[in-house]
């Protein structure tokens, strides 16, 4: 019994030490966001002499024309939220008809979606730009440097995995449920929106979390589709743009990083149970 207790203490200490090691980079960002450029290069490891500096740096970031923090933050929210709504609704309804329609066409479409999961972004990214430019030239619909284009892109790149997950879940929903609704007078599309869509809650969580983390943090796709220094920028794009313009100005770069991270960390701590559960459900299948 004594040995068991000793080993528990050892585990507790080991866990605590690793926990601190994992969070130490965040701590460094925090203390150095409250320093001036001289202090940061001379004493990066020590506590700041004046914590109030953090507000001075934050104000500089908030008003920086290279970062456009307020508008970039808003763009990130618009892009992530809209993509998630589109992905969750459209992939779910697609998955439902693919599960419930037992034809060869249906099976083939599903197979193509799944096969597309091995296609890396790299092979389509350059032609995508040319293709979007051609569409704009012919139809006048601007897809580059616009919300329309990036939302279409996220729907396209996210749908395979999302359909795959919804498909797996919908297969386990008994058909009797739908038949009962049909007898009660539900029309075909109503069966989905009224009966099926609400049941999909747990898998919606997974799809939201996995796509949400991906889209919010994505860098390469916005870099190509939106471009740096454009009116519509996401947070990663803005930080890259800023870090490129202020090379080695760590006081400002780290403050920008802090301001990019804090909202996400707060969001995570608030929705932690939901997020962790969502991630697990998705990966175990």
């Amino acid at each position, binding site marked *: 019994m004594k040995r068991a207790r000793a080993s*528990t203490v050892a*585990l*507790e200490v*080991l*866990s*605590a030490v690793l926990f601190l090691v*994992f*969070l130490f*980079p*965040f701590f*460094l*960002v925090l203390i150095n966001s409250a320093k001036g450029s001289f202090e940061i290069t001379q004493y*990066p*490891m020590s506590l700041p002499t004046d914590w109030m500096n953090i507000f001075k740096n934050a104000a500089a970031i908030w008003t920086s024309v290279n970062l456009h923090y307020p508008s970039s933050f808003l763009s990130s929210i618009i892009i992530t939220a809209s993509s998630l709504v589109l992905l969750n609704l*459209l992939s779910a*309804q697609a998955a439902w*008809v693919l599960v*419930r*329609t037992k*034809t060869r066409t249906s099976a083939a*479409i599903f197979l193509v979606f799944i096969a597309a999961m*091995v*296609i890396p972004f*790299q*092979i*389509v*990214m*350059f*032609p*995508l730009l040319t*293709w979007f430019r*051609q569409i704009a030239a012919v139809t006048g619909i601007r897809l580059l440097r616009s919300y329309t284009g990036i939302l*279409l*892109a996220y*729907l*396209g790149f996210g*749908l395979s995995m999302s*359909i795959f997950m919804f498909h797996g879940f919908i297969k386990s929903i008994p058909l009797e449920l739908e*038949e009962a609704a049909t007898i009660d007078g539900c029309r*075909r*599309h109503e069966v989905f929106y009224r009966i099926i869509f609400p049941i999909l809650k747990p898998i919606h969580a997974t799809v939201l979390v996995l796509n949400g983390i991906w889209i919010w*943090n994505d*860098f*390469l796709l916005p870099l190509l589709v939106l471009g740096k220094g454009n009116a519509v920028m996401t947070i*990663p794009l803005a*930080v*890259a743009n800023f870090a490129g313009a202020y090379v080695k100005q*760590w006081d400002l*770069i780290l403050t920008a990083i802090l301001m990019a*991270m804090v909202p*996400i*960390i707060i969001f*995570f*701590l608030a929705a*932690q149970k939901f997020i*962790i559960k969502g*991630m*697990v459900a998705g*990966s*175990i299948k």
Partner: protein
Amino acid sequence: MKRKDSHPLVFWLFLAPVLFAFVMVIVIPFFLGVYYSFTNWSSSARAGNALRLVGLENYVRIFNDPAFAYSFILTATYTVLNMLVINVVAFALALLVTAKTRLRHAYRAGFFIPNLIGGLILGYIWQFIFNNAVPSLGTLLGFASWADPANLVLARNTSALGALIVAGTWQYAGYIMVIYVAAIETVPVELHEAAQIDGASPLRRLRVITIPMASQAFTITLFLTLVQSFKQFDVNVSLTGGGPSTMFMGKPIYGTELLAMNIYNTAFISNDLAGGQARAVVFFLVLAVISLIQVSVNKKREIEL
């Protein structure tokens, strides 16, 4: 009620939006991309009469380019080491946070948090750590040599590769840990109790109970870390930017340029779109083959266990 396909209208209407996006963003660019890789595609020869087929020329150029060979070897090395380190760390963390420690939920959240930070931002944090914090720590501890610019972690390509692995592990281990935790928690407690009564040591229980029972998770985690490592771009951009430069086969090249960055730089820095596109096709083929092999090997092993 045997009218299984009596709603073709609903079928096509429900599929229309995703099919549209899929064709626009994946199918057309994919085939265009394969086609362009056999042409002289460039920013001036985009379409129309200037664009012409050049056969395998772009592919021949790839295999004569030392920078690509170097980048390929580097990416393979990085992928293997990164997969290894992430999975070992993640599994160890999973064992720790499933032990009956008092603060295990807080630990779990703490280890997971770096995963919420995108690779780009996280790379800048680690650049600061390696370029500023580590030298300063060296001075504090009395190792003045740490502050010598030539000794910086990011100043040599082998240690810079290590830095990429450290940053990659910090980002991804928490996510993989969550998957391992879920797998470990499905192992029935009775199994451990029975083994304990039979006198099995914790290490032996780990080897004969936990690891085999978690084998399904290994298929997923190895696949995820493989793809994640092979496609790494964001951390590469912000942490090392491809540097420092080095010599390879008599040519000066970037010392830490992973394949994804090599593709990007070929197209936009060297202004060689067709060359970049051909590299992307090779990248796709390699990724497709290794992920198929990896999944089928693991599936087979999973059944045997």
